């Protein structure tokens, strides 16, 4: 069987590796526009910060692909997918497939702001972007968008000694992950080294060939570099043109087996629209872990083994100026329409909040301490009723098998 994978991100590579693990004979072909071997996008800010060398972000070497017998054709974009002929076209070649896995991923969006074509405008997506940023030798940086990528990039460049301004359109940083209060706390931490501007929008960038000043509604910031972290767009063009169903949020529509509207064509990673584990509503999960899990599911089903995606549940852990912060599940904004109970606690160095809906934990945000939050994450994913976990924690016979619950008690006990 010939299986073609489009994309070399987390999902594409994970799918390839899983296919080979399960089937030593099938033919695996990977096509990608980028020409890098597998790399960890999540580690790119660490490179920016200077903590690890760029080469450490590469996950598979040439010889690994050879060992896994994965045929690669990187560096050429797929132009067309023909479902009836079961083939893909690049500029040079036509690739036939028996099964197809689309892992085309997403790309950062640079809004059409005057001056966004000047030298010094960057995104953080590929190792190439990092190389270019470092070659540019940034001194004064404006990071646009205070999502997790924006925040990580900002603190990474701060670590390099840059003067960094972080501009966020919404009223707080990381608005999709954290609620008001923890967001403000993190902002406070960030502001020890970074200028944070919330509720601001970049309106214009001025300079001759190179960036000189970044203009927002209220301020003019002297800068030589702008890094855009203002959101991404799903790469669904070939899927759309081929006639695959596209969901309301703009991702390729898949079932729980990660199969698209066409039998034998699977999709996984940033490009698909999956569902949230608690609300069961469609969502775009742009996380490394979701991509890998979806790729596993796609690979297994592709070979005829049953597997089912259990739903996306976000988990982000960040080191912000040396302080670990974690956000998991949903935040209040995403839970609009539900009756949410909030448990929170704060002391000098630590803060956490738990969001509960009808006896279930659905979200958790913590600053300063992450130990033991694994139990909470498991409970969010599993949907364990809190009352049940309280009950079993008192069961002497069960506790030895529930060591993982024990951790949650430090968080749950304060709501008693």
């Amino acid at each position, binding site marked *: 069987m010939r299986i073609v994978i489009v994309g070399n991100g987390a999902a594409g*590579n994970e799918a390839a590796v899983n296919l080979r693990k399960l089937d030593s004979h099938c033919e695996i072909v990977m096509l990608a526009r980028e020409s890098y071997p597998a790399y960890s996008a999540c*580690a790119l800010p660490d490179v920016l910060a200077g903590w*690890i060398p760029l080469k*450490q972000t590469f996950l598979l070497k040439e010889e690994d692909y050879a060992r896994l017998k994965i045929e690669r054709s990187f560096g050429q974009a797929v132009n067309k997918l023909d479902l009836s002929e079961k083939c893909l076209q690049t500029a040079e070649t036509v690739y036939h497939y028996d099964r197809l896995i689309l892992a085309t991923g997403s790309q950062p969006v640079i809004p059409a702001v005057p001056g966004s074509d000047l030298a010094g405008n960057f995104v953080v997506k590929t190792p190439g972007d990092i190389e270019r940023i470092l070659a540019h030798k940034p001194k004064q940086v404006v990071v646009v968008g205070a999502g997790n990528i924006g925040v990580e990039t900002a603190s990474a460049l701060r670590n390099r000694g840059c003067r960094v301004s972080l501009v966020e359109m919404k009223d707080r940083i990381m608005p999709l992950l954290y609620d008001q209060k923890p967001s403000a706390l993190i902002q406070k931490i960030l502001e020890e080294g970074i200028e944070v501007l919330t509720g601001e929008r970049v309106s214009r960038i001025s300079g001759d060939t190179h960036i000189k000043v970044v203009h927002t509604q209220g301020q003019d910031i002297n800068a030589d570099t702008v890094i855009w972290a203002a959101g991404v767009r799903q790469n669904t063009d070939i899927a759309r043109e081929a006639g695959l169903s596209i969901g309301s949020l703009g991702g390729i529509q898949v079932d729980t087996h990660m199969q698209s509207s066409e039998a034998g064509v699977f999709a996984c990673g940033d490009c698909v629209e999956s569902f949230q584990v608690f609300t069961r509503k469609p969502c775009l999960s742009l996380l490394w872990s979701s991509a890998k899990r979806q790729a596993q599911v796609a690979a297994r089903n592709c070979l005829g*083994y049953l597997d089912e995606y259990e739903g996306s549940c976000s*988990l982000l*852990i960040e*080191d912000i100026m040396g302080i670990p912060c974690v956000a998991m599940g949903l935040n209040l904004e995403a839970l609009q329409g539900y009756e949410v109970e909030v448990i929170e606690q704060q002391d000098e160095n630590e803060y956490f909040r738990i969001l509960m809906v009808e006896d279930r934990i659905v979200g958790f945000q913590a600053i300063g301490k992450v130990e033991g939050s694994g139990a909470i*994450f498991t409970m969010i994913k599993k949907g364990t009723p809190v009352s049940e976990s309280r009950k079993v924690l008192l069961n002497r016979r069960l*506790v030895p098998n529930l060591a993982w619950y024990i951790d949650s008690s430090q968080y749950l006990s304060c709501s008693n």
Partner: protein
Amino acid sequence: MNSKKMGMRMKRIFVNAEACTGCGLCQLLCSVHKTGQWHPALARIKIKEMPELELNVPVLCLHCSNPPCEVYCVMNLIYKDPNTGYTLRREDKCIGCRACEIACPFSAAVMDPIREVVVNCDLCEGDPLCVSGCPEGALLYMEDSEAGERKRKAAVSLGAWRASRPRDGRGSL
């Protein structure tokens, strides 16, 4: 076809919390063996105290067949060893992001604060020191099938069955 996962016939460490006194010798042995330093915080085995129940529960990597930590590792460092079935990691490449630590339901992945990498129990390549060093027999190293058999035997001797043995014996047919 069934959901094929990477199962493996292997011995694992089973915990008998009732026997654990919380002495921490396992942690010291582990820390010294793995890091050369003598400190419980460096051990891959943790002891959770449950004072309300007067229990100490040793916690360590369970070597799941389909480990969540593997999925959450952003550097793809965690893997199932095809020969032994152990969940292992290439620690030298770890960037210390701690995603695996939170992804593990059992909090069995441990941040090594000295090297700033996350580590887990590797069963000492098949001869776990903590097991041989436990003075109370709270850690048992055996195959799953044996654990199941012991469990069943223990269940039968709970008493309910025994109590109903007939007086006259000839009960079988």
